């Protein structure tokens, strides 16, 4: 039952990153490449039409986590207090940027909303990557000092950074050189994904240029990926053991590398949808590989005093998980129906869609 809920939450989270990921990426591309007002407008629109229904997946993942793994939810949300609240603020800034853009006449206002949308998208992508980095690196559970826990062993509190920016100290912070590299990977990945989305959904004049951008970003991504694997070995020498012991898990990295290699041929791909699919694989593979490398651990401990958090020691009891299964399945089917109906009716390029107000 724990395993089932773990997988379900991972799926919902992955869907969130795939869907809202293109919004983040769109913001990043918007920030750096959109120059003409017409392009800025359609690009913002290609994210603006969808962001709130995409964000519901985050809300759903949060709710499911709360219900199925309350101890994990409590520990991680209070431990990563500052970065999480900052993420909430960024989400608000991004929404402001997207929602207000079309409503004011003067260019000055448009520039302000555009910057708000672009910068917060960039930082959100960075923060989500850093979060993933923190999860695979692990934290000082119990805030142990000199072998003694300061709290119950499943609580902790991370500063944003410590003076050395190093993951190898006793008290690593949220941002260190390892998590920062993972953060950059997320930024580049989502930028690629966003560029693909823009090509797919708009007729903007920079579409032709974007393929070249994707190609270059992809090369950066390959370099970053290899570099991060090297760093990961330094931070946690056992990081790949899971894949050796359970070779079946190798499918996840394979998904990732399929995306990576496929995008190498971006200029020859004729169908825009196929390119989008490849960057989807990238996100899916990246997240699932990281999770699979830890399984069944969900938050490693960097000290030897306290046990890591696993899906077993943080789960809610059996009864609750099994009733939730019944409504969860019904709910999930409904979600897919809504989702398909919505994407069906709102398919096609967004240029001519009438954007509300």
């Amino acid at each position: 039952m724990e395993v089932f809920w773990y997988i379900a939450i991972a799926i919902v989270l992955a869907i969130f990153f795939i869907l809202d990921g293109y919004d983040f990426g769109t913001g990043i591309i918007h920030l750096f490449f959109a120059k003409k007002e017409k392009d800025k407008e359609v690009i913002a629109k290609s994210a603006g039409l969808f962001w709130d229904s995409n964000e519901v997946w985050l809300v759903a993942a949060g709710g499911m986590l709360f219900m199925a793994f309350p101890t994990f939810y409590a520990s991680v949300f209070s431990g990563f207090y500052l970065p999480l609240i900052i993420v909430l603020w960024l989400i608000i800034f991004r929404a402001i940027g997207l929602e207000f853009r079309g409503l004011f006449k003067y260019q000055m206002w448009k520039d302000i909303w555009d910057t708000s949308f672009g910068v917060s998208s960039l930082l959100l992508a960075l923060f989500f990557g850093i979060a993933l980095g923190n999860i695979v690196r692990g934290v000082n559970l119990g805030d142990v000092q000199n072998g003694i826990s300061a709290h119950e062993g499943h609580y902790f509190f991370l500063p944003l950074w410590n003076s050395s920016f190093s993951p190898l100290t006793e008290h690593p912070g949220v941002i260190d050189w390892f998590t920062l590299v993972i953060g950059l990977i997320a930024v580049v990945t989502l930028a690629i994904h966003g560029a693909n989305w823009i090509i797919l959904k708009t007729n903007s004049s920079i579409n032709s240029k974007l393929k070249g951008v994707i190609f270059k970003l992809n090369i950066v991504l390959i370099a970053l990926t290899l570099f991060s694997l090297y760093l990961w070995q330094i931070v946690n020498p056992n990081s790949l053991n899971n894949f050796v012991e359970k070779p079946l898990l190798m499918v996840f990295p394979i998904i990732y590398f399929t995306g990576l290699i496929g995008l190498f041929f971006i200029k020859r791909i004729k169908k825009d949808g196929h390119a989008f699919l490849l960057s989807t694989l990238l996100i899916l593979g990246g997240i699932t590989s990281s999770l699979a490398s830890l399984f069944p651990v969900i938050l490693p401990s960097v000290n030897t005093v306290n046990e890591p958090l696993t899906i077993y020691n943080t789960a809610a009891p059996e009864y609750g998980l099994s009733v939730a299964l019944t409504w969860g399945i019904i709910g999930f089917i409904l979600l897919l129906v809504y989702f398909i109906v919505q994407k069906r009716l709102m398919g096609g390029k967004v240029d001519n869609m009438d954007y509300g107000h």
Partner: protein
Amino acid sequence: MEDMLFYDRLQFAFTITFHYIFPQLTMGLSLLIVFLKGKYLLSKIEKYNNAAKFLMKIFAVNFTMGVVTGIPMEFQFGTNWAKFSELTGSIIGQTLAMEGMFSFFLESSFLALFIFGEKLMGQKLHFLTGFLVFLGSWASGWFILATNAWMQHPVGYEILENGKFVLNNFGDLFTNPWLLPAFLHNQIASVVTSSFVVASIGAFYVLRNKQVEYGKLFLKTGVIFGLVSSILVAFPTGDWNAKNVAEHQPAAFAAMEGIFETEEAGSEIVLIGQPNMVDKKLDNKIAVPNILSFLTHQDWNKQIPGMDQFKEEELPSNIPALYYSYHIMVGLGTIFIGVMALALFFLWRKKLYTIKPLLWTIMFLVPFPYIANLTGWYTAELGRQPYLVYGLLKTSDGISPTVSSGNTLFTLLGFVALYMLLGLLFLVLVGKTINQGPTPQTH
């Protein structure tokens, strides 16, 4: 420790208050939109459709605000109330997760369709999407109130040796005696808010002598819905809630009503008075004898326990705030019925659109249903103190053990600044929309 608790509470109170400004309009307004759209389907008079679409624009801005302020609420259970989440998450996580799965998805998927899809879908389907948005928002209220009802009156649980609350009967969460009265009262209260908003926009158009046709429509709709909902919010639903509190949280009830001393037979109802916590009495009291006993128990002489019957630690922690919140809600509720009854009377005599003082009153009444809704929630939440889960888990035992007060103050200040900006933008946008008015679209 003390100030950790203080800032956690302050941050939660501030962010939930701000959040709740928006859903109350969402839930009520979706009903009015469905009503107008339905009227258009039946009558085919273009005016109703334009009115519905116009209200939808206000709805959309409001909805966005609700979403961006709601996400912090969900996160805050974990960030600021970690111990509470750990101990009760397997129960209240159920209702919160169901809210996400069943209602938010319904609402946001179909909202996009309702706004962008009229030409794609045809009128009947368009009505249906509007209806689904309404259903989603009310379902969301249902699940959130089920969560809150469990905290007010826990059911279907078992407490393990390690202090964790474990669900043992899922059905109980939804048959909780606290839930149905709270849900009905709360939803009708949100209809009050939206009717007043619509009536106020109508009064504005009529007074300004622009968009007068729509102004009259909005006034009429707002006043009729406003009177009906104002009556229903007091009776039977408000009354039902009061009985519920008297039964399940008698100490909170005594404090709400301001009964310091138990009377031999029959309690008076207090209209005005200031709680004096030093002498344990109400200053400057105006009260009517025996009414409270009759309202609560249909018996003029039934004894109602006053605050003197409870131990200090059983009483709510902030009695004056609780007492004022409750009296403000009830007082405003009474005024609402009065104003709307008067307006309906003149509407019936076909004079409403010309009586300026009344139109001014309706126009400026708009903040008050918001205040009534918020003070209603303060009543519920302050009455529950000092407990997070009534009678079982103290608020002070629910906070995050590792988050220091300096960090909470930092994030609180951030939320205050950000929400001020957000509130300002919201007002500008809604103001602009109202100024433009529902002029028929030309394409």
